[in-house]
């Protein structure tokens, strides 16, 4: 890629980043995250904007499902092999250990835990999300490969729950990321969580588990909501 092309691309990317994001950056930006010019190993000067990358302002691509029977078959496989990200975002995660241990044993239903977002399809938002965690959750969600599913536990994700008046926790999860299945309870019992997985399987088999594409379609709206409350977009390296 020539220098000119590179510069054009960078400029194009910068134009796409929105103005209010920049405003937020002004107050909370680490020196190493500042937009700046660096000398590439080949001697050319390129502009970099780390915040832009962390921020994932890049609109995700909408990935079309395959057609007909093939998609149905793949959906069946997806439904029977759900890999859940092991990220306990809130207190509901205390009910995950019973699920992976003898009492409830969700492995027999094809549900397993994975430690990294790259390999997970399902994300259990286990209750309230503080803004600090939300930032990580969004990044994690964007790291997860499509198709991906979100299970939201408890009152907190629906309308704020106990923490409806807290300055630190969000009230409605669906404003920030699309949610497939809500499970009522504070916190939901493991049995309810299993029932939620069953519902998720049903949805996937019916071809309704396409919330990742919805996120891509309404990306601007979701991002605008996220930016409203997350002021500090500095993201430490390798932190999900």
């Amino acid at each position: 890629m020539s220098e000119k092309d590179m510069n054009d691309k960078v400029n194009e990317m910068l134009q796409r980043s929105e103005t209010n994001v920049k405003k937020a950056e002004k107050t909370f930006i680490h020196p190493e995250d500042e937009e700046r010019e660096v000398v590439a190993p080949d001697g050319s000067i390129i502009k970099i904007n780390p915040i832009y990358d962390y921020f994932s302002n890049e609109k995700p691509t909408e990935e079309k499902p395959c057609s007909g029977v093939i998609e149905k078959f793949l959906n069946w496989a997806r439904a029977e092999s759900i890999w859940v990200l092991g990220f306990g975002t809130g207190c509901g995660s205390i009910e995950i250990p019973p699920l992976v241990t003898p009492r409830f044993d969700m492995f027999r239903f094809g549900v397993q835990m994975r430690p990294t977002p790259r390999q997970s399809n399902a994300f259990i938002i286990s209750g309230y999300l503080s803004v600090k965690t939300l930032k990580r959750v969004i990044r994690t969600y964007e790291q997860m490969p499509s198709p991906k599913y979100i299970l939201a536990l408890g009152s907190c994700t629906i309308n704020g729950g106990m923490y409806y008046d807290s300055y630190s926790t969000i009230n409605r999860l669906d404003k920030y990321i699309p949610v497939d299945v809500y499970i009522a309870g504070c916190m939901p019992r493991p049995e309810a969580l299993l029932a939620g997985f069953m519902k998720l399987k049903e949805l996937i088999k019916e071809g309704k588990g396409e919330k990742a594409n919805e996120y891509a379609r309404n990306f601007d709206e979701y991002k605008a909501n996220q930016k409203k409350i997350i002021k500090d977009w500095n993201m430490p390296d390798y932190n999900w």
Partner: protein
Amino acid sequence: MINKFLGFEPDKEKLPSLTAKIGDDIDLSSHKYQKIWLGPNHPGVTGNMSVELWVQGNTVVKAKTHVGYLHRGFEKLIERRLFVQGFPTSIRMCVAEPDTNEYLIATCTEQLSGYDKAVPEMAKWLRMLSLEMARLQGLLRGVPGQGGTFALGLGVQWGVYLRDLILDRFEELTGARVYHMYIIPGGVRGLLPDGFKERMEDNLRDIDDFIIRIRRLMFHNSVFKKRAKGLAIVTPEMVDKYGIVGTTARGCGVKRDVRKDDPYLHYEQLDFDPPTDTDGDVYARTWVRWQELIQTVDLIRQIMAKMPDKGDIKTPMPNVLHWKIPKGETYVRLESGRGEYGMYYVTDGSDKPRRVNLRGPSYTHAIALLEDLLVGADVADVHGIMVSLQTCPPEIER
């Protein structure tokens, strides 16, 4: 010896010492160090928190604990809630052992309003039962969990299953699995259901069996010993310096147990002696906790034998909707599975508290102590050290 020969044993003298000033900057651009993050999305952190590590090879040279991922502002929220509304909020301050929070907030309100003498006898025994059951379920997760940190997942599987049985008993007694919301100002919310003691005794027998099995699995295990012995040593001199409490202090021979030091409820009527060990390393702490597991089972048996069959569960109190407590302040503590757990409570004469401040053991263990203990440790041991200090992030940030 062979380690030294092969160069695997880090030369501690070259690393920042424990006494180094906090905040010593490490020059990452020197390419001698790497910065890695453990968490918040990491199976190796307890709960939703993260540790920022500066490593040299496999060795941690600096660590910073980052909390706040679970911050909900409980103390602020309770300031907005009536005295009776405090307990559902407070119980969520630590999910690992929730009953302790209920007890603290109930006792604080009772002490300041003068109802602490009026709590019925039956309610006191039931409170003790629920507190000990909470300790038991915490230990059933925690003791094998220490093995789990070193990838011995089997004990965790057994332990969590048995914990689930205790949660079933909790469900029968209190109406909920995890957030029991059982201890309220003035008493408790229900008598023992029929046949509770028999079912509990069945579970305790299972747990007795488990205790023996876990001893064989963990404490007779050469690899576990190799991993845990000599790891993250807490010396008795450090106890007061860092504010170390509970099993962590008992693991190095300093006997600190609120149940003995400042007896509350009817603990002076029970026959027990908090276990101690002298080494102060991860193994000693786990060993103390394992002994405490035996002791807790025994305590539950003692409580069930000594408690009355029936009685009042709640003292009559003013209408909760407009209950006001005169101006005052108090500090109430109890011994949780993790150590001294206390609450500072200030009232100003209105129907809501002025200030609630929780003092969780993790507050000191997981920040000041952990950051210092991690220096010089192996990356692989970070999780083990965190669990051995019984880190519970929600009680740090609340």
